[in-house]
C-alpha cells in the first residue's frame, strides 16, 4: 500500500511542477472569463462597442439604394419604410449612372416577368452573395410583396406565419427556447469541455506510462513495485489532479453562466441546474476510470508514443461521436431516442449525459442508470487492463496494432 502511495505522490508532484499543466488549467478559465468580461463590457459601453463593430463589420450606415421597376408593380413605398431608402429610376442606364456617381450604394431591377418567375436582380459593386438575405434587401422584397398584395402590408406580414405564437406545453419540464443562440452553445460547450477533460486526463496517464517504458525507468520501477501497484498509483494520482481541473473548470462554467444570465438576460431554463455539478463529478470520475485505464493499457503495450497514436483514435471514438452531434441533436432534441441512447451507452455516457443534463429536463431515473452502467463497465475494464499490466508486456518492445490491443484487453495474450 505504501508503495502505491509513493507512486501516487510522485505522479501528482511531477504533474503539478510542470508549467504547461498550470498554463492550461488556469489559462482556459482565464480566457473564458476574459471573453465574457469583454462581451459584457461591450454591452454596457456604447463607444467601445461601436469601434469594435467598425473593425469587425465595417461601416454599418445604410445608404440609399435605387430600383428600376420594369414590371410596373411598385406603386407606393409603405410609410413604415424610412423615406429616401429606395429611390426610383426610370431605366437601368440612369440607375447605373447614379451608382457610378456614388449617389446610391446598389440598385434593384424588378423584371417585367416578376410575377411568373419571382426573380429580382440586385446589382452590388461589392458583390456579396449573402447580401440577398441582408436587412435592406429583405426590406425591398417586402416592399415588392406589399405592392403585389395591393398595399396590404399587414396581410403580407401574416403570410410569413403568425406574428406571435403563445406556446403552451403540456410536458412537465419547460423546453429550452430554440431561438436563443445560447440553447445551442451551452450543450456544445459542456460536451467539448468534458471531452477535453476526460481525454486530457487519460492521455496524461498514457504518456506517463509509455514515457517510463520508453526511457527504461519502468525496468527499475518493476524491481521494487508490482505492476498492479504501479497502475493503481498512477490512475488515482492523475485522477486526483484531473478532478481538481474538473472542479475548477466546471465551477467557472457555472459561475460564468449564472453571471451572464444577468448580463445577457438569459431565460432561467438555460442556466445550469444545481445538481449539474454533482453529476459532473460522478460522470467525470467514472468516465475517467474507463478511459484512463484503456489508455494506460495502451501505454503499457506500445513501445513508444508514436506507435500508440493510431490505436488512441479507436479508443476515443465513442467519445467523439457525441461531439459530432453536440450542436444538432443535443440542442434540438435532447431527450429523443438518439440522444438518450448515447447518454445511456456506457462508453459515450460521460460526455452525452453531461450535454443532456446541461439542457435540463432529463427524466430522473436516467442519470443514475447511466452512472450504474458506466460503473459496471469501469469495473470490467479496470480488471481487464490490470491483466494487461504485466511485466511481460511492460518490458517488451513489440509494435502494437488495434488487433493486438483488443486481444490483450480480452485477456488472450
Amino acid at each position, binding site marked *: 500500500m505504501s508503495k502505491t502511495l509513493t507512486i501516487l505522490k510522485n505522479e501528482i508532484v511531477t504533474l503539478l511542477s510542470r508549467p504547461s499543466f498550470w498554463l492550461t488549467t488556469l489559462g482556459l478559465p482565464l480566457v473564458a472569463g476574459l471573453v465574457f468580461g469583454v462581451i459584457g463590457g461591450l454591452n454596457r459601453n456604447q463607444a467601445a462597442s461601436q469601434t469594435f463593430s467598425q473593425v469587425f463589420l465595417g461601416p454599418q450606415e445604410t445608404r440609399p439604394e435605387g430600383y428600376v421597376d420594369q414590371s410596373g408593380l411598385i406603386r407606393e413605398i409603405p410609410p413604415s419604410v424610412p423615406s429616401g431608402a429606395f429611390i426610383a429610376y426610370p431605366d437601368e442606364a440612369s440607375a447605373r449612372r447614379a451608382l457610378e456617381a456614388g449617389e446610391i450604394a446598389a440598385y434593384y431591377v424588378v423584371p417585367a416577368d416578376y410575377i411568373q418567375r419571382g426573380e429580382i436582380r440586385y446589382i452590388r459593386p461589392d458583390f456579396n452573395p449573402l447580401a440577398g438575405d441582408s436587412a435592406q434587401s429583405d426590406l425591398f422584397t417586402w416592399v415588392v410583396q406589399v405592392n403585389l398584395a395591393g398595399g396590404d402590408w399587414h396581410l403580407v406580414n*401574416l403570410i410569413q406565419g403568425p406574428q406571435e405564437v403563445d406556446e403552451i406545453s403540456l410536458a412537465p419540464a419547460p423546453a429550452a427556447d430554440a431561438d436563443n443562440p445560447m440553447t445551442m452553445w451551452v450543450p456544445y460547450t459542456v460536451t467539448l469541455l468534458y471531452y477535453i477533460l476526460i481525454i486530457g486526463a487519460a492521455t496524461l496517464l498514457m504518456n506517463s506510462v509509455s514515457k517510463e517504458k520508453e526511457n527504461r525507468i519502468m525496468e527499475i520501477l518493476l524491481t521494487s513495485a508490482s505492476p498492479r501497484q504501479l497502475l493503481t498509483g498512477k490512475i488515482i494520482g492523475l485522477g486526483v489532479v484531473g478532478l481538481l481541473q474538473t472542479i475548477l473548470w466546471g465551477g467557472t462554467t457555472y459561475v460564468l453562466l449564472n453571471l451572464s444570465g444577468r448580463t445577457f438576460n438569459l431565460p432561467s431554463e438555460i442556466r445550469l441546474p444545481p445538481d449539474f455539478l454533482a453529476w459532473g463529478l460522478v460522470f467525470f470520475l467514472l468516465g475517467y476510470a474507463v478511459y484512463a485505464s484503456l489508455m494506460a493499457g495502451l501505454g503499457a503495450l506500445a513501445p513508444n508514443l508514436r506507435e500508440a497514436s493510431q490505436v488512441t483514435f479507436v479508443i476515443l471514438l465513442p467519445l467523439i461521436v457525441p461531439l459530432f452531434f453536440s450542436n444538432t441533436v443535443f440542442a434540438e432534441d435532447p431527450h429523443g431516442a438518439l440522444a438518450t441512447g448515447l447518454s445511456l451507452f456506457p462508453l459515450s455516457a460521460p460526455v452525452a449525459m453531461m450535454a443532456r443534463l446541461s439542457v435540463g429536463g432529463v427524466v430522473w431515473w436516467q442519470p443514475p442508470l447511466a452512472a450504474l452502467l458506466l460503473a459496471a463497465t469501469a469495473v470490467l475494464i479496470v480488471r481487464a487492463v490490470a491483466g494487461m499490466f504485466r511485466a511481460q508486456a511492460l518490458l517488451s518492445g513489440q509494435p502494437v496494432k488495434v488487433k493486438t490491443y483488443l486481444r490483450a484487453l480480452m485477456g488472450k495474450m
Partner: protein
Amino acid sequence: MTKLLRVALHEYKRHVFTKRFLLGMLSIPLLGLAMVGLAFLLLSMENDTTPLGYVDQSGLLADPLPGPEPEKPYKPVPLLPFETETEARAALEAGQIQGYYVIPADYETAGRLTAVYTDKISRPARWQFYDFLAVNLLRRFDPAVVNRLLEGSEVVILSPDGSRVAAENTILNFILPMLIGIAFIIAMFTTGGYLMQAVTEEKENRTMEVIVTSVSPGQFMAGKILGDIAIGLTQIVTWVLFGVLIVVFGRASLEFLRSVQIAPQTLWLILLVVLPSFVTIAALTAAIGASVTEAREGQQVLGILVMPVWIPYMLMFTLMTNPNSPLAVTLSLLPFTAPLTILIRDGMTILPAWQIALSAAVQVAAAAGSLWLAGRIFRLGMLRYGKRLKLREVFGKGY
C-alpha cells in the same frame, strides 16, 4: 541539385506509400460523405407525420382551400379541424395528434396564435400549417399572385459588370474557394506533422549525422520541404478528384451541383498566396523540428504556430457576411491568416487588385524570410542534442 531531389523523393516515398497516410487521406472525403448522410438522416428524423390539429374561431378556415404540398424530403402532415378546444385537447392526450393551434377570432388583425403540444410541434408541420393559413388568407387574390406571395422572391446578386452572378442554386461556387482553403490548411498541417516527425526522428536516432556527411544542410532542408509540399499537393489533388467525381456523378440528380465552377482568379490566388504560405509553414516546421530535442516538445511549439492560421476559420461567419471590413482586409494581408481569409473573401466579394498584389508580395516575402530563418536554424540546431537553441544564437552574428 540531384541530391536535393533525392532527399525530396525519399521523404515523399516514405510517407506517401504507407497505410496510415492513405487511410488518413481517404478519411477526409469519407468523413465528408458521412456528414452529408448524417444531415439527411437528421432531416428525415424530423419527418413526424402524426396529424396536426387546429381549432378555428375566426371563420377563416370554415371552407378551407388546401395548402401547398411541402417540399421534398418532407412528407405532408394531415391537418385535422376540431370544433372545440376540449375535443382537440382530448385528441392530443390520446396521442392522435402531435399538437394543435387555436386561431382566435381576431387573427386577421392581431396575428396571434396559440400552440398547444406536449413535445414541440415538428418544424415541417409548423411550416405546412402556416402555408395552409396563408393560402386561405389570400383567397381573394389571383392564383399567380398568390403563388408569388407564398413563394417569395429570389434575389439574384450581380456585380456591376455582370461577370459574376449569385443565385440560390450557385451558392456552392461561393463557398468552394473556402473549402479549398480549408483543405489546403489541413494538408499543410498533416504534412507539417510528418516533416517535423521525420526531422526530429532523424535527429534523435542520429541518422542526421550520417546524412550531413554527404549532403549540405541547405540541400537537406530544401529537399525535405520540397518533399513535404509534394505530399500536401498529393492530398489536395486526391481530394479534388473526389470532388470532381461527386460533381460528375451527382450532376444528374442534384441540381445545385450543375453550376459548379472554379473561377480562374481562385487558381491565381492559390498559386500566389496559398502556395507561398505553404512554403512558410513547411519551412518553419522544419526549423522547429531541427531546434527541439524531443518530438513532443516540437508538437507544442507547432501548436502555437497553428493558431493564427485557424483564426479566419473561427471568424468565418463574420468574414463571410462582411468581406470588406477592416478586419477582413487586414487578415487577408498578414502572413498565416492570409490563405484562408483571402479565399473566403474571394467567394464573397470582388477583391481589389491591390489587395491581391500586396497579399501575394507579403506571402512571398514571408516564405523567403522563413526559408532563410529555417536554413540558419537548421545549420545551428541539427547536430545539437539536449540543449535548446536560443533566439540570441539564431539572430546573433558569429555563429
